[in-house]
């Protein structure tokens, strides 16, 4: 579980396969719906911040990455992890708090996975951005073509550390891609209540960072924007800030019970009508390439895969109590 990823020889990933991206979005959706059920049932532990509605962003971005690239996520990170290819059994076991979990049950949703260079999923809004910049710096120092990607919510632009990092990244031309998943809410607040304007592009531009606005519910658009940003960063062209507009069609957070939060019904309906999975299904090339039966088979495979992960997590033992005190201090490697 701790083997480092060898630096990629070929810096460019294969062109994204629309069917694979569709299947990855479906897997995230099925997983998230199941994790919410299992949280309500008390099997999943801790807070669950579902990614439902934003699947296209994780999938489109990760399609642009190679093995050697790094990722920094946050508390709403299951989708990022799945899109990155984190082992689903180990992810699920972690959300169950079990010994076989990615982090041995210590992290719950705040996972790291050294196998896929998922460096951290911080519970502190904005904190991951300088960390991602540090990974970008590491690639720069070593002369490796790796890029570092940080996923943030729109709320993270409130954090001074994010702005500080944008300035440094621009000046030092760090191979850094910030993916801002702008869903219009920051927990209980609507973004326009706390920001001077709804678009976030000018905030990034003010730091002289290349800023690109896209429809975050269009997986192809996300993949293209990510691909361009990653290519630029790899070539020494510096950072990009991608603002991907999207929406959480479930809610911000749940513990024992689904959140009772209310959203304007017309707003919710409009975004549900632009569901990223339906949108991908109905647009070329999938409209022509996949029959309804093909699509149903993809959903069925996802359900089976998630159920297998759930069964594996259930049969994994709890960590031994002594594990609470391990990994406080690093040992000589």
């Amino acid at each position, binding site marked *: 579980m701790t083997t480092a990823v060898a630096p990629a020889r070929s810096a460019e990933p294969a062109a994204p396969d629309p069917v694979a991206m569709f299947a990855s979005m479906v897997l995230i959706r099925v997983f998230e719906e199941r994790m919410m059920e299992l949280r309500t049932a008390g099997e999943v*532990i*801790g*807070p669950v911040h579902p990614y439902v509605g934003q699947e296209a962003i994780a999938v489109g971005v990760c399609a642009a990455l190679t093995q050697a690239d790094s990722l920094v996520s946050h508390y709403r990170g299951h989708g990022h992890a799945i899109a990155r290819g984190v082992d689903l059994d180990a992810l699920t076991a972690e959300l169950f*708090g*079990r010994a076989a*979990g990615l982090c*041995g*049950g*210590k*992290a*719950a*949703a*705040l996972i790291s996975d050294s196998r896929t260079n998922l460096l951290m999923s*911080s*519970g*502190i*809004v*904005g904190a991951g951005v300088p960390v991602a910049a540090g990974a970008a710096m590491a690639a720069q120092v070593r002369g490796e073509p790796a890029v570092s990607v940080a996923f943030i919510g729109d*709320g*993270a*632009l*409130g*954090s*001074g550390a994010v702005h500080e990092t944008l300035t440094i990244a621009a000046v030092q031309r760090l191979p850094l891609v910030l993916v801002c998943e702008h869903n219009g809410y*920051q*927990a*209980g*607040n609507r973004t326009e*209540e*706390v*920001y001077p304007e709804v678009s976030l592009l000018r905030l990034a531009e003010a730091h002289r960072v290349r800023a690109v606005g896209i429809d975050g519910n269009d997986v192809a658009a996300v993949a293209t924007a990510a691909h361009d940003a990653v290519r630029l960063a790899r070539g020494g062209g510096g950072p990009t800030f991608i603002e991907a507009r999207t929406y959480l069609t479930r809610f911000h957070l749940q*513990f024992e019970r689904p959140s009772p939060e209310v959203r304007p019904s017309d707003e919710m309906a409009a975004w549900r009508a632009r569901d990223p999975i339906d949108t991908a299904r109905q647009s070329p090339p999938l409209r022509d390439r996949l029959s309804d039966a093909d699509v149903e088979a993809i959903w069925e495979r996802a359900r089976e895969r998630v159920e297998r992960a759930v069964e594996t997590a259930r049969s994994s033992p*709890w*960590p*031994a*109590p002594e*594990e*609470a*005190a391990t990994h*406080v201090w690093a040992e000589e490697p």
Partner: protein
Amino acid sequence: MNEVGLLDLVLEEEFTRDPNLVFLATNSPASLRRRFGSDRVRICAISEQAMTGMAVGAAISGLRPIVDLNRASFAMLVMDQLVNHAGRMHYLSGGQYRVPMIVTSATRGRQQLGPQNEQCPYGIFMQTPGLAVVVPGSLRDACALLRGATRWPGPVLYFVAPELNRQRGLSAALAAAPLRFGEAAHLRHGDAATIVAIGGAVKVASDAADALAADGVHCDVLDPRTLVPLDTAALAASVRRTGRLVFVDDGPRSGAPAQILSRLLDEPGVAAAAGGRIGYVCQPDVPVPSAPPLEETMWPTEGRIRAEVQRVLGEPE
């Protein structure tokens, strides 16, 4: 606010009394906002450092700001404003400026928020001069100490355990008069041992003392209520009498317990009375893990407290 909704009502009353009170948070109570308007009750972006710094400036300028950080782990984000500014401006200005502000946050609960967001960092602020540190041990004291905080002349860090929200007696708690800082609560009386319990651990420590009393072991239980200023005299008097000392805290062993112990050892007779007969039932000095069987090892429980009291009782004088 802070997982303990009753405190919103306290604030409403205090806001009525003192027009200088203002509130800053990412999430301010809707009722407070409706009643006192968006000038005094503000919603901010997720900018804790800016909110805390604004509170310093507003306090110097004559207001009495309250910043709700939500989680105590977010105190780590605002250390500079708290330690280098709020706590030092009175000193730095040679007494010209006072910084009456309150920073509230919730400590550890049972929500499996994990190693980052389950924290009781109040011990850290016992070595940062100028900051009062308030950690209520009951719902009633939570209300009374919040009222006291709105009358304190300098910066106050107010840490409340989410568990207090489960306690009953809401109207009595709400009616409690403002508490002065620096007065410990003497909750149980006995000569066998002194239990010093903090914050969310006060209830379980009192329950454990009751169970021990039923077995004929009568302990003193003291809740300092404010860690800075600390009621060293009350704690020292108890330890001199019992000759045994057990700390019970949801926070780490090297946090508040270590700080309190060092203060007590300065008091004449304490070291001689309790030397070698000191125990701890705390979070060990490790982060709080998410998995329930691991997290469980991090809480003071009645059983652990009883065992620790019995252990120090077994140590020879």
